[in-house]
């Protein structure tokens, strides 16, 4: 049912978008109009040239097929991660139980035992033990209960058996035994019903009610998404800067705007696309999770997701400058390849550490240290949040360290970018742009 609703929602949204696009085409306008566009234009105008550069980045990125397909792919993946476990639970095995006599209490005990063993039960009334045994042999029923005192099965149920039938019989046998004990004790029917309705008292954890499994699942999904998205956005920055340099368009742009405006606009534009995509994914995850009642979004799940969203922004803010500076050093694909591995190393290390720790649920001291270092905090800190092993002030301290690290990185990267992006020919060495001796060794771009 929920799947049908989600499918219908997707179709409606797609139809609305198609209809709007057709209407715009009929009106002969290629640009979206309306309040949203005016607001957007106002927002970018207030940012001046940075806003214009950011606007172009957003338009070009969102328009790209890679972005559309990638977003759809992630949404499908997240939806599947949330829905499939519920579908699996919804199709729990069913046991057909032939019942000979026993009364209404037996039926109630059968239901309770089925719940305990994760199955459902279908009661088939049988006239006699002989009829029940016959039905059992014929395979029409899985189990037979005679007068609430005996359980018949076709084949012996071993203690090591993992079938749903074995689990059901294991739960049913003691329950029927208790029922017999109640009868032997001379309890009335009402008393026996009251006792049969006994429920275990709830066990409350001081660190929230999420099960460890659910928190782990949410954490792992979040880390994987964080890794995929950070890698993707960083790659956009790297390739974007490199392509602007390679196509020489950077010369035309820098004839009109300052390097920091161009770089700032690019970083802002791609960052907003990243935030938009991540928000869409988190919103989609929350909506689908709520619709199907996913365990992944219970307990600390939502706060873990929000924390991951925040760390995606902080992680992007830190790494975008690194990748922008690297992009300005290269102007060919092969030059970029040599830069990618060393740049990706901290991300890969943090990613592997985070996945391992989320799996074991036991963060080491080293992992806790990584949660405060700007390059690794985006992966480590959300895991600690998911495990409930971080206080608010520790979280804030990590955020502040990350912001400070980002400011330092932005300052350094802007300097490298300014010195390197107009130098062409062979790949620019970092030492060339950092060293004082490099000040007067800038190679002319096609000097004649």
């Amino acid at each position: 049912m929920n799947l049908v609703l989600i499918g219908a929602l997707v179709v409606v949204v797609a139809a609305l978008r198609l209809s709007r696009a057709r209407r715009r085409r009929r009106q002969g306008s290629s640009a979206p109009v309306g309040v949203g566009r005016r607001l957007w234009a106002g927002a970018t105008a207030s940012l001046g040239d940075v806003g214009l550069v950011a606007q172009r980045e957003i338009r070009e990125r969102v328009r790209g097929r890679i972005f559309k397909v990638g977003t759809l792919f992630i949404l499908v993946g997240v939806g599947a991660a949330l829905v499939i476990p519920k579908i699996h639970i919804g199709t729990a095995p069913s046991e057909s139980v032939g019942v000979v006599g026993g009364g209404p209490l037996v039926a109630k005990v059968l239901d309770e035992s089925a719940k305990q063993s994760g199955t459902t039960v279908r009661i088939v009334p049988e006239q006699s033990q002989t009829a029940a045994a016959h039905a059992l042999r014929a395979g029409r029923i899985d189990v037979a209960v005679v007068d609430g005192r005996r359980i018949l099965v076709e084949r012996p149920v071993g203690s090591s058996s993992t079938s749903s039938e074995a689990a059901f019989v294991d739960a049913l046998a003691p329950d029927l035994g208790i029922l017999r004990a109640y009868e032997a004790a001379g309890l009335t029917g009402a008393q026996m019903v009251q006792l049969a309705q006994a429920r275990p008292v709830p066990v409350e954890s001081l660190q929230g009610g999420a099960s460890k499994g659910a928190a782990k699942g949410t954490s792992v999904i979040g880390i994987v998404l964080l890794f995929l998205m950070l890698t993707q956005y960083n790659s956009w920055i790297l390739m974007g800067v490199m392509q602007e340099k390679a196509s020489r368009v950077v010369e035309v742009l820098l004839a009109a705007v300052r390097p920091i405006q161009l770089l700032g606009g690019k970083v802002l534009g791609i960052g907003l696309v990243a935030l938009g995509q991540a928000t869409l994914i988190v919103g989609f995850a929350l909506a689908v999770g709520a619709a199907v009642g996913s365990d992944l979004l219970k307990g600390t799940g939502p706060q873990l997701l929000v924390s991951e969203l925040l760390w995606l922004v902080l992680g992007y803010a830190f790494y975008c400058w690194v990748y922008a500076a690297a992009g300005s050093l290269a102007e060919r694909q092969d030059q970029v390849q040599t830069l990618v591995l060393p740049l990706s190393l901290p991300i890969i290390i943090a990613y592997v550490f985070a996945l391992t720790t989320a799996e074991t649920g036991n963060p080491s001291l080293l992992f806790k240290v990584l949660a405060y270092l700007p390059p690794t905090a985006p992966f480590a800190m959300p895991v600690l949040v998911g495990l409930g092993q971080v206080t608010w002030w520790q979280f804030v301290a990590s955020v502040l360290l990350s912001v400070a690290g980002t400011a330092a990185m932005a300052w350094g990267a802007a300097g490298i970018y300014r010195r390197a992006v107009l130098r062409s020919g062979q790949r620019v060495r970092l030492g060339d742009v950092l060293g004082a001796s490099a000040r007067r060794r800038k190679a002319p771009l096609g000097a004649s």
Partner: protein
Amino acid sequence: MGGLLELEGLRRTFGTVTALDDLSFDVPSGHVVGFLGPNGAGKTTAMRAVFGLTDLDAGEIRWSGKPVGQAERRRFGYMPEERGLYPSMLVGEQIEYLGRLHGMDAVAAARATRTWLERLEVEDRSKSKVEALSHGNQQRVQLAAALVHDPEVLVLDEPLAGLDPVGIDAIGEVLVERAQAGCCVLFSSHQLDLVEDLCEQVTIIDHGRLVVAGTVDELAASGRRRLVVRVEGDRAADWAQGLPGVSVSEVDAGAARLVLADGVDSDRVLRQAMAAGRVTEFSFERRRLSEVFREALA
């Protein structure tokens, strides 16, 4: 529109290579100035310096008497030698975007984009990606990008390279038109005949230094006077041999090209020719720009 672009005392070295060596020249508004020099002379470096794309060791660039900064550069248009457009961006959007970066509002940028794409006859490619265009059309789009914000100064590095005659005419026409509208146009080229046709002034540099600058007319009339004399029936121009102060540079199908030393009376040459036979041609010849260029760099 009106002003003077001044490049004064520009100096720039790259390691041991001196790209600009105390280079100074002016580009007045309302003129098309050809910027000439052999490969490696420093033309591109000088042009990039106007836009702050290369640091200078010394010197200053002024526009209307004031040092050129970011605000002034927004009113300049630039076409780099190796071109510079986003390959996968739509032509119309790209021009509009560059116009906006130069300070235009969205409506004005859209209008100017349409105008210039029509003027350069590429309006039908407005929705195409730049990479899908031919070399000539990319060149036109690049020029539109330099012109979209109606710049006061237009600096074009090899704008005519690789174009067919139709493209050269179209772009040349636009450059002259912009100069007539009061724009200050500086462009480099190795096509000297075209420069001679398009420009009122030329500046020739070599090894980062100014070699020659002046109007095309001044340069054509400068140097030793040249005469072309044709005497009927005399294909070898023997009559000119031995004339004091006169050297025969070339004899082509009876037409003798003579170079006169300073102080030589051209009437005396005419009398000598008339004595040899009936004179069918007697004219002073202007120097071609290519000759000026070669002599300047000799």
